[in-house]
């Protein structure tokens, strides 16, 4: 077995080289073909994208093979592989450290390149497609190169190693490790597609609305996966980390949030461009910002300049990513400057009280939000560079500043959906906001009756009520007019997404403001109570397997069911990991953690209890956002029923 597995390193690296060559030739073919407008050359492009995708699949498969056969001749397998890791977590161990996660990036990016070239196969003569594919090939070549040299997952390890520690314990105790990273990457890497088309539009000078409409679904797809990936990460944090929170403002979380913020700004402001032909420079800048923030985020979190729970060990890839970031900025700004005359927008926004002005305000808020998150993330670096002094910027800073921004965004969500394009009179507003406003009053009254207090949460609930009313109004009017078709299309699907966001905002407001916690020292078979619930320790048990020893406290909650918070010691790594146990219901979660020190033979245990309202609505809201995104991706009412459903380009309304 070892003999055959030793080959997987060589084979994997060869695949990376083939993929790199395929991407370079692809870029060459795409750029030359587009410049000479030569259909002979352009016809070759899909072959190169297929080649590099196949190579990426091969390299990834080689890595999986090495991991599954425990080929300890590879340094990477020595680092994250172990005979004792269960098969599922061993499969996911491939992306549990730096080199493997770059390899996954390579795979996803090559996959996107192949998918785009398949998608444009009938329209290859359209030079914008060739230029865009060229850009994607260049980015792919960069990642193949990073994976080949500085982050080589197939590097040979020290000889004579027969077993390893396995992945980080946090990456081998919950099934989400299978889903969160790949889904997040589908979003994170997916923003390369609209970026590539934006650059292609700048190069060809066809900066009108055609390319935007064409790539609308790609942007939405990437945004949806990014949203879903981030939400899965929050769920994971809640279920695994044991501090009862969903978001810690950790630098890596921020690195995924930053492109999400600019991406969200983009999918809103792009509607203004489609409808009115305005904000062209701004929209291209947002796409450039979104893509470059994924690269900057990778630099910040993978180069060792910032540390976080997600950060892998230090490596030399930092300078590579910094260089790519610089190139992206210089090229994009240069192109925007060069095409400045063509980008000038033809229209004006007539009134501050109009749909387009609301989108503009939305963009201002999201831009400030992105600025806050970026500033807070890199501020320790700035201070260290200026004064050689260590400071920390953590959750309290981000919480404090994001709250007013969140409330302002909720206010916009309440008003903007009822605003008409061009210009609204206050009379229209009064009329259209009438029922939504009553929804807000109802939400306020209901939350007061349930005992809520404090200005910020009450404002959140009130604004949430109005926004939900405004979103429902749109959906109800549309379905009344068009039946089930009133649920699809970007305006209606977008309102479903809004409803999901509102649920999340309300759930965050409630759980952040009205959580209670208490540490209880439980003695076996003696009932303790907290906040109207009873807790009784039944037993403390020890469970051993060949990678860990866990101590579980069996706690009877409310005399009904036993929950078992645990602390697990991963013996090979020497790390203790707590595992919370959660009783979920539609109104309140009871979140139990076992506090150290623990002894298995004891008849007592220290338990921390968190009572957290409305947590489940975060996940329901996420599901609603996902459904809304899918609905928004379906063509809206402008398509005729006789059209082929697979027709990729919608004709923009004038």
């Amino acid at each position, binding site marked *: 077995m070892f003999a055959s597995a030793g080959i997987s390193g060589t084979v994997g690296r060869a695949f990376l080289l083939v993929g790199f060559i395929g991407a370079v030739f692809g870029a060459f073919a795409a750029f030359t073909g587009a410049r000479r407008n030569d259909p002979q050359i352009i016809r070759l492009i899909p072959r190169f994208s297929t080649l590099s995708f196949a190579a990426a699949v091969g390299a990834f498969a080689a890595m999986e093979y090495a991991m599954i056969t425990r080929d300890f001749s590879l340094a990477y397998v020595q680092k994250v592989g172990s005979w004792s890791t269960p098969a599922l977590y061993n499969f996911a161990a491939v992306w549990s450290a730096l080199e493997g996660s770059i390899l996954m990036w390579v795979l996803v990016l090559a996959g996107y390149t192949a998918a785009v070239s398949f998608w444009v196969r009938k329209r290859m003569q359209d030079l914008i497609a060739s230029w865009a594919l060229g850009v994607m090939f260049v980015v792919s070549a960069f990642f193949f190169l990073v994976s080949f040299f500085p982050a080589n997952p197939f590097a040979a390890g020290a000889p004579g190693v027969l077993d390893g520690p396995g992945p980080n314990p946090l990456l081998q105790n919950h099934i989400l490790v299978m889903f969160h990273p790949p889904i997040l990457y589908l979003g994170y890497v997916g923003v390369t597609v609209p970026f590539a088309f934006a650059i292609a539009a700048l190069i060809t000078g066809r900066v009108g609305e055609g390319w935007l409409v064409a790539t609308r679904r790609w942007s939405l797809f990437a945004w949806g996966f990014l949203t879903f990936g981030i939400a899965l990460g929050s769920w994971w944090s809640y279920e695994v980390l044991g501090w009862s929170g969903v978001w810690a403002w950790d630098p890596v979380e921020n690195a995924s949030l930053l492109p999400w913020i600019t991406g969200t700004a983009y999918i809103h402001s792009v509607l203004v461009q489609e409808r009115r032909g305005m904000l062209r420079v701004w929209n291209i800048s947002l796409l450039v910002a979104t893509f470059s923030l994924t690269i900057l985020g990778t630099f910040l979190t993978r180069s060792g300049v*910032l540390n976080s729970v997600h950060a892998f060990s230090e490596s030399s890839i930092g300078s590579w990513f910094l260089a790519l970031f610089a190139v992206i900025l210089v090229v994009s700004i240069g192109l925007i400057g060069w095409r400045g005359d063509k980008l000038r927008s033809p229209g004006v926004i007539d009134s501050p009280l109009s749909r387009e002005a609301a989108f503009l305000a939305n963009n201002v808020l999201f831009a400030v939000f992105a600025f806050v998150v970026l500033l807070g993330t890199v501020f320790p670096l700035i201070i260290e560079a200026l004064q050689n002094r260590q400071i920390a910027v953590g*959750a309290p800073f981000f919480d404090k500043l994001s709250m007013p921004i969140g409330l302002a965004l909720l206010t916009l969500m309440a008003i903007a959906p009822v605003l008409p394009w061009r210009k609204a009179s206050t009379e229209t507003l009064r009329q259209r906001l009438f029922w939504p406003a009553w929804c807000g009053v109802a939400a*306020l009254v209901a939350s007061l009756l349930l005992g*809520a207090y404090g200005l910020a949460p009450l404002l959140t609930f009130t604004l949430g009520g109005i926004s939900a009313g405004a979103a429902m109004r749109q959906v109800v009017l549309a379905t009344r007019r068009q039946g089930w078709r009133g649920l699809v299309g970007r305006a209606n699907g977008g309102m479903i997404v809004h409803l999901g966001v509102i649920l999340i905002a309300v759930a965050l407001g409630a759980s952040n403001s009205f959580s209670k916690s208490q540490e209880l020292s439980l003695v076996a078979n003696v009932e303790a109570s907290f906040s109207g619930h009873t807790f009784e320790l039944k037993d403390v048990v020890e469970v051993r397997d060949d990678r860990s020893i866990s101590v579980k406290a069996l706690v009877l909650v409310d005399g009904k069911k036993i929950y078992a918070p645990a602390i697990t010691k991963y013996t090979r790594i020497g790390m203790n990991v707590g595992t919370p146990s959660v009783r979920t219901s539609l109104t309140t979660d009871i979140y139990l953690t076992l506090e150290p020190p623990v002894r298995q033979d004891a008849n007592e245990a220290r338990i921390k209890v968190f009572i957290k309202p409305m947590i489940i609505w975060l996940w329901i809201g996420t599901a609603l956002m996902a459904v809304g995104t899918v609905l928004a991706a379906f063509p809206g009412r402008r398509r005729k029923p006789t059209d082929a459903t697979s027709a990729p380009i919608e004709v923009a309304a004038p």
Partner: protein
Amino acid sequence: MKTRRSVWLAMFLLVAVLLVFGSTRTGSPQTQQDRIDSLTSVLACPTCSGESVFVSRAVAAESIRAEVARQVSAGLRTDEQILSYIEQRFGGEVLLVPRATGVDALVWALPVAALVFSIFLLYSAFTKWRGNKPESPTSDDEQIVARALKTNTDEQ
């Protein structure tokens, strides 16, 4: 129409009253645990940068948590005093919230500056757009129209 307006007014009043009522009433009094949790969430875990003592499960965070709990249950020090005690005892920069003095204040000031600046940009954009919209036709324009109308009628 008139009733609508008065209904709106009543609604605003109602919301204002309810918000004032709701934001002045308080929930259950702060427990010792609440105090421990809020103190530990502004303290940086020394071995894991970026995370608070409240969030982190690291050993160093565990011992600071225990110390804060001891101080709180002793009940002798104020929050401020406990924080500075922890700073003395564990050394280094322990706060997770940047201070509002010196260069560190920039992290608070810059977001506000960014917001003010972008609102100013929006405002000037709207005044510009409003400025160049109601253009009345010049005499040249009118001549062109007249000529065009004349050729049109001539042809017919």
